[in-house]
């Protein structure tokens, strides 16, 4: 199998002596127009992979900030067809890898087969489905892989070594490690067990490991720098946009300080 574009993106960042930076923003936030401007700005600011949130009415794995943002997008009638169409048009000028992150039902209603085709055509490199655990993932993964789209697994502090190994056998692109036992949303401190859990996961997965949920400052990575290959920021970015109206220098501390 050829190397995944997402793996390549992360490897390149690591070669520059820094971690891959992966901002997350729900599609259409805060408005349909502004969203694409923010994507361009994130891309220009050096984002390695951009995660585009596909809004869902009942996001059980998300905290209040992301949930509110997703509902705001739904009020503007954002849907997968619009996301994929716009992306298809704009993709040639975006350098970053593109991942869609969402919940099973909107993907299912679009049709997994059609999704795999249209996502690949629009230049989507990977998919994260928050409510699709290992046991149910085989069918969707095969369909996506046929079109060169990675299905990125989410794992966490409570994932047993057996489950991590089972994931590692299937996963391509990168693995997303959820930093906290809970939903998305900024936390001051990350849990103590994180260092050991990440070290274990790092040994099991042959692909890069990204850390997400609760991140807002590079100082939070103290102690886990050596095992984390990429970082995902969602709620912190949404708050930044809410208070300043632009992406501005949001990524700078993550890119410059490293």
């Amino acid at each position, binding site marked *: 199998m050829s190397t995944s574009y997402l793996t390549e993106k992360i490897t390149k960042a690591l070669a520059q002596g820094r971690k891959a930076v992966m901002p997350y923003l729900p599609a259409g936030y805060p408005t349909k127009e502004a969203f694409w401007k923010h994507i361009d700005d994130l891309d220009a600011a050096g984002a390695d992979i951009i995660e585009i949130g596909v809004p869902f009415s009942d996001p059980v794995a998300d*905290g209040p900030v992301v949930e509110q943002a997703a509902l705001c997008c739904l009020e503007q009638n954002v849907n997968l067809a619009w996301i994929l169409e716009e992306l298809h048009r704009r993709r040639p000028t975006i350098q970053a890898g593109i991942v869609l992150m969402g919940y099973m039902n909107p993907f299912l209603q679009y049709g997994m087969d059609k999704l795999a085709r249209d996502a690949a055509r629009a230049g989507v490199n990977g998919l994260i489905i928050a409510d699709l655990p290992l046991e149910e993932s085989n069918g969707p993964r095969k369909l996506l892989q046929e079109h060169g789209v990675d299905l990125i697994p989410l794992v966490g502090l409570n994932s047993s070594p057996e489950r991590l190994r089972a994931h590692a056998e299937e996963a391509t692109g990168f693995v997303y490690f959820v930093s906290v036992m809970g939903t998305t949303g900024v936390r001051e401190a990350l849990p103590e067990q994180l260092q050991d859990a990440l070290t274990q996961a790092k040994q099991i997965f042959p692909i890069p490991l990204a850390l997400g949920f609760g991140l807002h400052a590079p100082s939070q990575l103290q102690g886990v720098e050596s095992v984390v290959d990429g970082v995902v920021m969602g709620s912190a970015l949404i708050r930044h946009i809410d208070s300043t109206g632009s992406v501005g220098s949001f990524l700078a501390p993550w890119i410059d300080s490293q």
Partner: protein
Amino acid sequence: MKKGYFGDFGGRFAPELLMPPLLELEEAMARIMAGEPFQRELADLLTHFVGRPTALYHCANLSRELGFGLWLKREDLAHTGAHKINNTVGQALLAKHMGKTRLVAETGAGQHGVATATAAALLGLECIVYMGAEDVVRQAHNVQRMELLGATVRPVDSGSRTLKDAINAAMRHWIAEQGTTHYCLGSAVGPHPFPLLVRELQAVIGREALDQIQARIGVLPDQVVACVGGGSNAIGMFHAFVPHAQVALIGVEAAGDGSPGCCHSATLSTGTTGVLHGTMTKLLQTVEGQILASHSLAPGLDYPGVGPEHAHLQALGRAQYVCVTDDQALAAFMRLARTEGILPALESSHALAYALKLTGTLPQTANVVICLSGRGDKDLEIVRQELLKREG
């Protein structure tokens, strides 16, 4: 059949972080719940705490008016006033054996919240109940009951502020607190093993009803009827009758005000297949997969999804699902009160309203058994306001 599936429905579409507790629960069902000591302990609680078996009551007055035999399986007589207690006593006992110290639950009508708070108090567990902000107002009386029982009620202000949003909040809580907490899910919905677990704990309703009706009339009933919100009282009622093909199984859903396109709760009658709250089932949703807000006069039926086993029984043609409007349910509520001296829950009134529509269509010898899932005391404020509205 695929693990955790009923035909094409069911499964486990939950975040990876919920897989360990779901597997732990599945394992506990096999190791603890299937064992004889647990079953003995549960049977003892059902008899002496819950008050089982509940009566099977022959409605002599209504039967004369309808022209066939009408029977009520009186879950309204169970402790706390609804079938929900069968499930919560079982799950609380299992949680305790699993070493959990806290129950988290969601509630719509408040009946499941009250039943969870009751079981938690009995077994010495802490209890937190999420409830849509809208339902907190509609079912204020039950909020007070839960608080008196020592539970903490947390209003949920997001989304449609009803049951589906309370489930989202309870699942989030469970993700974060899974070490100490059992999620005491209130209906036969959610990721595997919940639909199976809840069905096993509610199946006592149908087992008793089957024995009782045979003891009374010596034959099986022609129809067995229950209201369907998430579908727990209905699946509990149906389960023992499923193998008896000559017994028609009828699930009654809420059609709200009945206007086409209005928000209603008739998931099996008008919904499409999708994934919500961890399970593949029938849903009220847009073509793009966004979940629609439901509506019913009966808060316990106000849910845009349904248990996956019902979707399967419908696909098989083994059970039929019909709808009843708010008005028809309210009329049935009034009629049972006046003819038999029983105030049914508005949820159960939907099942009754279906039976009332059968007037003149069945032979005198026919027998229809309805699951009277709960009592109407909790609904007095809703009924009072509706009657005022109708009087103009």
